[in-house]
């Protein structure tokens, strides 16, 4: 199986609210897939459809090759889920909850459970009502990671973790990828997605607006270039594919910053060379810029920096 999740034209309405409006999602087996979008974009609704808790109003969805609504129980043997807002039974201890969820899923690895508990520094003897948000999140994470499920569905799993635990989480996800597990990671923490994910899908108002590998995404966007030149360059503003051009004349030359479409980078560099390059820096657009480009379309790409 090469595709773990396929959703096409997914629509979900709640009364007059249209939470999903033709959402597409494709997650390949064995990849860590970032599911990006701001609050209310439809990430959690999509995940709840994937879990068979909600039924899609329209559209097609397959999870591990099966229908998540009709085959929910069978599919749940093969996946583990960490909700975004973890609520636990207040009178049970964290250890009890981890064991219970593991057994309901058909058994978990005891050694791995204990290893994860010490890695995440979680005290399993405490009652769940005394846990902080981060600790509740750890309970759900340990329960999911200790299972042998082939698909992990994680809904904003680090939203309550401290930076140390966030790093630990990142390492754990790296190991899961190495073990061949598929991970769907919903998040709006861009740096996290940037370091952990192979591919990302960006959703906005219930639709997928972008879905690709990170390098492809970057290639499709303008690179930011800044250079110090020996002489003021001529004709830059007439070059195709150059945007947001700023030229400042200095005592001994000129400082130029601009954004350029990937296919026109060549022409720009030639123009720079003609003017004499003293220093040159270029960086690909950050995920944040890509993200903002989709969400604040009135703002030019890169304007956040």
């Amino acid at each position, binding site marked *: 199986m090469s595709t773990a999740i396929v959703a096409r034209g997914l629509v979900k309405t709640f009364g007059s609210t249209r939470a999903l409006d033709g959402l597409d999602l494709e997650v390949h087996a064995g990849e860590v897939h970032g599911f990006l979008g701001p609050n209310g974009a439809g990430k959690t609704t999509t995940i*709840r459809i994937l*879990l068979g*808790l*909600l*039924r899609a109003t329209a559209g097609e969805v397959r999870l591990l090759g099966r229908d998540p609504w009709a085959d*929910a*129980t*069978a599919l*749940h*043997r093969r*996946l*583990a*889920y960490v*909700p975004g*807002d*973890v*609520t*636990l*039974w*207040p*009178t*049970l*201890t964290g*250890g*009890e*909850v*981890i*064991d*219970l*969820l593991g*057994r*309901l*899923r*058909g058994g978990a690895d005891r050694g791995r459970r204990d290893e994860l508990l010490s890695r995440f520094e979680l005290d*399993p*003897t*405490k*009652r769940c*009502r*005394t846990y902080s948000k981060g600790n509740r999140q750890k309970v*759900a994470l340990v329960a999911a990671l200790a299972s042998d499920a082939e698909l992990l569905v994680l809904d904003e799993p680090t939203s309550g973790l401290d930076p140390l635990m966030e790093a630990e989480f990142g390492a754990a996800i790296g190991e899961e990828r190495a073990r061949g597990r598929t991970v769907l990671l919903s998040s709006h923490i861009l740096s996290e997605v940037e370091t952990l994910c192979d591919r990302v899908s960006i959703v906005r108002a219930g639709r997928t607006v972008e879905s690709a590998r990170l390098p492809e995404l970057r290639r499709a966007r303008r690179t930011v270039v800044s250079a110090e030149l020996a002489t003021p360059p001529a004709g830059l503003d007439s070059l195709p594919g150059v945007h947001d051009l700023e030229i400042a004349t200095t005592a001994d030359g000129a400082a130029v910053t601009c954004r350029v479409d990937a296919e026109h980078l060549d022409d720009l560099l030639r123009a720079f060379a003609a003017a004499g390059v003293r220093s040159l820096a270029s960086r690909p657009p950050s995920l944040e810029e890509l993200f903002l480009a989709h969400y604040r379309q009135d703002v030019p790409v890169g304007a956040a920096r």
Partner: protein
Amino acid sequence: MTAAVARHAIVPRREAAFAGTRELVRLIVRRDRVALGLWVILMAALPTGLVSAVEQGYPTEADRVAFAAGAAVNPAELATRGPVFAATVGGLTAWTIASSAVLLGGVVNILLVVRHTRAEEQAGRRELVGAGVLGRYAPLAAALVVVTVGNLAIAALVTAGLVAAGLPAAGGVALGLAIAAGGLLFAAVGAVAAQVAEGTGAANGIGFAVLGVLFALAAAGEVSRSWLVWLSPFGWSRRVQAFAGEQWAVFGLFALATAVPVVAAFVLSARRDVGAGLLAARPGPATAARGLRSPIALTWRLDRGGILAWTAGLTLLGLLLGAAMASIGDQLDTAAFRDLTGTLGGGDPAEVFFRFILYVLAQVVTAFGLATVLEMRGQETGGLADAVLATPVRRARWAIGQVAVAATGVVVGLAGLGLGAGVGYGTPLAVMGTTLAYAPACLLFAGLAVALYGWAPRLAAPLTWTVFGLVLLLDLVGEFGLADASVLGLSPFVRTLGPLTVGSGLAGALLVMSLIAVALVAVGLAGLARRDLD
């Protein structure tokens, strides 16, 4: 550090301690304005409505005197309502409503106070509010202010309604105040429970347990005609003697018994950490017990404490009632009582007594079953259902776990009640059959709750409780002969009591009700499998 300094640190300065009370009162009123309004109006309408029921059911003085004579020798009426002090329209109205209103008002007041104190802390909202300018005493003070105003409004409206119905003003004031005083006393009980327990459920449980024990004390005291009645606000609410030579001094007992727990609650609230209770949570097991591996095991693990405490309470209540019956066995065997039992199917006086008092208690057991079944909705909206249903557990299996535990609570509770009563009376096991006969009626309501939960989850709780309330109201109306037999027959409790009284057709009735209950559960499960989870 001197003692004076330490004391100063513990007890906050007065004006600062109450800062923000007014804002919190407004917040409570804003959040609960509909429920508070309904509570006041319904509680106020009940006594006035009863006046016309008494007038229609017992139009002449002779009718009323005959009814009072019957009630005086019926231990079930004595246990739940106490003696009739005057066979007048006012006297009978007060007799009918005083205990029920205190019981109902007690439940509402406990729920309200806990909801605005402990529940707020548990949800973490208290911290958000408390970070503003808010005194340590303010949350409790605000909750008590709201319920005090509510209870006083009820007292005023009850008085106005009764006077408008043509009854003497003094009696109207006395009955209105008795209902309000009973409510306030249990608000104070709820306030202490909210300080002692760390969880909302436990706080409500403590409050209801106190309510149950005080009701049982009064019941035992009335039946055995002993001083025990003076230990319970239920006894006091009757001995205010509204419309029968009002005893105003009894309100002193209410005042004292309310002031002590209120002061205790304030002192406790200033001495503990926000979020903590006096009964601190202890560390628990690091691993789950071997058996905790299914939804039913999970529900049992969560609810077993409540069910065991509840069963112990019902058994104790049974013991008290049984012992009280045993102590007055001979006094019961009067011509008047034989007359009464003759029309009710006859038999051993104790059996008749249990038949009737169980009729009332079965309704209480039903409420427990309903609350347990409806926990499903809370788990669904709270996200706890997701955690289980994202594992390979079918929805039906999850719901059946909850229903099975609720049914167990109902059956075990009824059995404990019957066993206690039997042991107390000296005939173990004999009464248990009668108590268990009510199980299908109780479970039918649980089935209704499941059916509604499956198809109309948002309406399930309000609709189920409304139907349950209407059936209880039907019984009250039925007592005054205002409802037709065919209408009364809609009540599963009447369907059980009838065959029990006549002595035949019981098995068939129980079978039919059981089948309906099972069918309702099946309908609910089918709906649950089809719908979205919130």
